[in-house]
């Protein structure tokens, strides 16, 4: 299958490019990484120059960049992301639990967004031009403009502090997930709703829908069998793209709600100049994002018989 082979090649290329960019992080950030390592291991501000040289030699930092990259890549592929400067524990041990938390957060948010947007979008499309459509469109459009860093404090203020019905921070049990999932889901819900509305409207205007009526299908049967399935197709790609985007985009929400996920890890890594931690977090997020985007393409192809068969 040349199609899959081409996709796979593109995937590998994208991952390699991303990993190389991540690898370069310590070289483009200010400060000498070797001094950072030593500072993280010994107390005191005075650093012996000979110790710097010795560690550089020991870490192979005098080797050409390509050699270093390949060595780093080799370790990465065996799951070794190095030691965190701050906690002095392997980065991989911190990344895995954090990844799990972030994935739960994002999947919950996207699931909620998809479910709500299908209901709203289909309703709006079927009621096109009537009050229900206008209200749904206006409200969802308004939420597109509201950023998470504004919504999150507002939600905390209302639901956690004023009403005291939900915890304001942490990641322990379902109640603590409600606010962050809600904040994270709002913007995708807005985008998804308008995509579903457009998709269903387009599907409604297709000529084959009129033909279905001429076969004796009622309006509802036609909508259910021919309009909604076709109208929801654009959503599949959109969800996958947003999945990739939210993996990195959850940083703000995780920081605001003190959720120990990937975003939080990344944030801490950058804040403390903990380069291995930041590198590990970025590599995992970017890798997943690339994987998901490719998956989105494949799913889109699978759902469209014309694309599916032309590559079979």
């Amino acid at each position, binding site marked *: 299958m040349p199609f899959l082979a081409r996709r796979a090649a593109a995937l590998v290329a994208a991952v390699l490019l991303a990993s190389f960019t991540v690898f370069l992080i310590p070289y483009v950030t200010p400060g000498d990484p070797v001094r950072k390592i030593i500072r993280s291991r010994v107390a005191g501000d005075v650093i012996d120059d000979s110790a710097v040289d010795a560690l550089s030699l020991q870490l192979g930092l005098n080797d050409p960049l390509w050699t270093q990259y390949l060595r780093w890549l080799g370790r990465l592929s065996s799951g070794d992301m190095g030691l965190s400067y701050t906690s002095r524990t392997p980065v991989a041990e911190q990344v895995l639990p954090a990844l799990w938390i972030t994935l739960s957060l994002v999947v919950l948010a996207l699931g909620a967004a998809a479910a709500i947007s299908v209901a709203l979008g289909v309703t709006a499309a079927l009621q096109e031009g009537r009050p229900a459509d206008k209200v749904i469109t206006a409200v969802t459009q308004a939420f597109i403009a509201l950023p998470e860093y504004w919504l999150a404090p507002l939600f905390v203020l209302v639901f956690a502090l004023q009403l005291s019905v939900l915890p304001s921070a942490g990641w322990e049990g379902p109640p603590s997930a409600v606010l962050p999932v809600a904040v994270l889901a709002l913007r995708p819900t807005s985008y998804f709703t308008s995509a579903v509305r457009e998709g269903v409207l387009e599907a409604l205007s297709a000529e084959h829908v009129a033909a279905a009526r001429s076969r004796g*299908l009622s309006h509802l049967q036609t909508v259910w069998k021919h309009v909604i399935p076709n109208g929801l197709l654009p959503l599949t790609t959109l969800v996958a793209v947003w999945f990739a985007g939210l993996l990195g985009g959850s940083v703000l929400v995780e920081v605001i709600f003190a959720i120990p996920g990937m975003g939080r890890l990344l944030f801490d890594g950058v804040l403390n100049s903990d380069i291995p931690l930041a590198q590990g977090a970025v590599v995992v997020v970017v890798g997943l994002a690339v994987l998901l985007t490719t998956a989105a393409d494949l799913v889109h192809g699978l759902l469209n018989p014309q694309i599916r068969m032309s590559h079979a």
Partner: protein
Amino acid sequence: MPEGLIIERLRISHGADSRQGSATRIVSEMDLSVAPGEFVALVGTSGSGKTMTALSVLGLLPPRIHVESGSIRLGGTDLRAAGEAELNRVRGGRIGMLFQQPKRMFNPRKTVGNHLAEPLKLHRGLRGRSARMQALDLLAEAGFEDPAWCARAYPHQLSGGMAQRAMLAVAMAGRPELLLADEPTSALDKVLELQILELIGRQRHSHGLGVLYITHDLATVSAFADRVVVMKAGRVQESGPVRTVLDTPRTTCTKDLLRASALPAAPAPSAAPSRTVLDLHSVTKRFRSNRRSARPALEDVSLDFREGEILGILGQSGSGKSTLARLILGLETPESGSITRFPGTKDNRSGTSGTEVQLVFQEPHDVFDPRMKLRTSLEAPLQQRRDCTAEDRTARIDKVVREVELDPALLDRYPSQCSGGQLQRLTIARALLLEPAVLICDEATSALDAVTQRKVLDLLLRLHRDRQLSLIMISHDMNVIRYMSHRVAVLFQGALVEVAPTAEFFAHPQHGHSKELVAAALPVPQAARACQHVASTIRVPGARDLVSSPDPR
């Protein structure tokens, strides 16, 4: 004895409220009936209200269009008074419908089998295995040699003719007593059109099916119809038995339609042998595609085209006609072989053709930018010329627009405000602005109704005389080719199989494919009965045959 479909004094209007007088009448005082087993042709130019009449029978008029008054009855049931549930039983159950663009009438994500399952379940309560068996029977009846393949096929795998036959199977699935066919063959070539008509005829005889066949092509349908109803501007102009209407047409509308359908044979070829303007030598062109092995779109085509000549290029869809046009224009380069334009002159060059060869496209609505006024669109080619001032441009455009028999005032409109015939004239005008020596008309009249087509063809003939314009007419329509051309070239699966003077070609076609094409060109109305014989002898190709034939694009 059931009474079939009876429409009386039907009025259909467009607009919010007819009582306020703001509504536009689309159909007025329409009387029409189709007895069981009868084949009635509803004929008229585009916009005459034929389709709306058909849709009103099914209760499926578009929004804002409604039946104002009159009655529609089917076998005793008053369809105007029927509720939605009753209508849903009628749609597909008692009335089957065929549409003009069959491929667009299938849900692209469902198989033909899925589509057949719906009416089988709704109207006959068939599910599962019995439904599948019945679906295969229906597809076999619709002429598919491999019904199982077709049931599994998605719409994009079907050719236009196959899609219409599959749609016929779907329409027949509910065992209807009436078939509404809304220009089901206007987008197909003659051979396929006859296959569809022949299949409909078979259903009619075996099931006592009444047929209301909507068309603008009086010629073809007259061989199959019992009665003809001619419509113009929403009113019935004339109706009666097919022979009476064809032999003694009473209204100018019918005469126009007849004259347009029965295009006479070509004038004798202009005698003096003139110089060659285009010389194609052993031209081959392939398109790379990862879907199928690169079967050549054109293979080893050699052809010379002389000044002042009208050359007809015949071929079914996918035969390579459009590729040939693009090669002559220089929009494509041949893989091997050579194309010489104007040999022996300074213009002899191998790249693009410059302005000496111009093209007129098939779909006039797609040719002009919908957001530009027509004058702006027409000015574009002249703006390339340094020697042409703004006043020059206006004068030249006005002159050429008058030459195609239009009022220059039309140029202040947008394309959506013009009819197809007007736009096609403007397409020709735009091509003429650059003073071409050769005009290629690629199915230039196929999208027009018969009357408009005749007028545009006559315009082209006049331009040919007045301007000594050489014409290449590319068409699948035998009548157009015979009416226009001095010589005929036949393309079949990318190869040039026959080139002959028009009269000779139609009298004695040599190649097998040519013979099939000539047989399908109905010399109606004079020999309508003979055609019925021809139609019944035409083999309906099975799925396999058509699958292997090339895709149009």
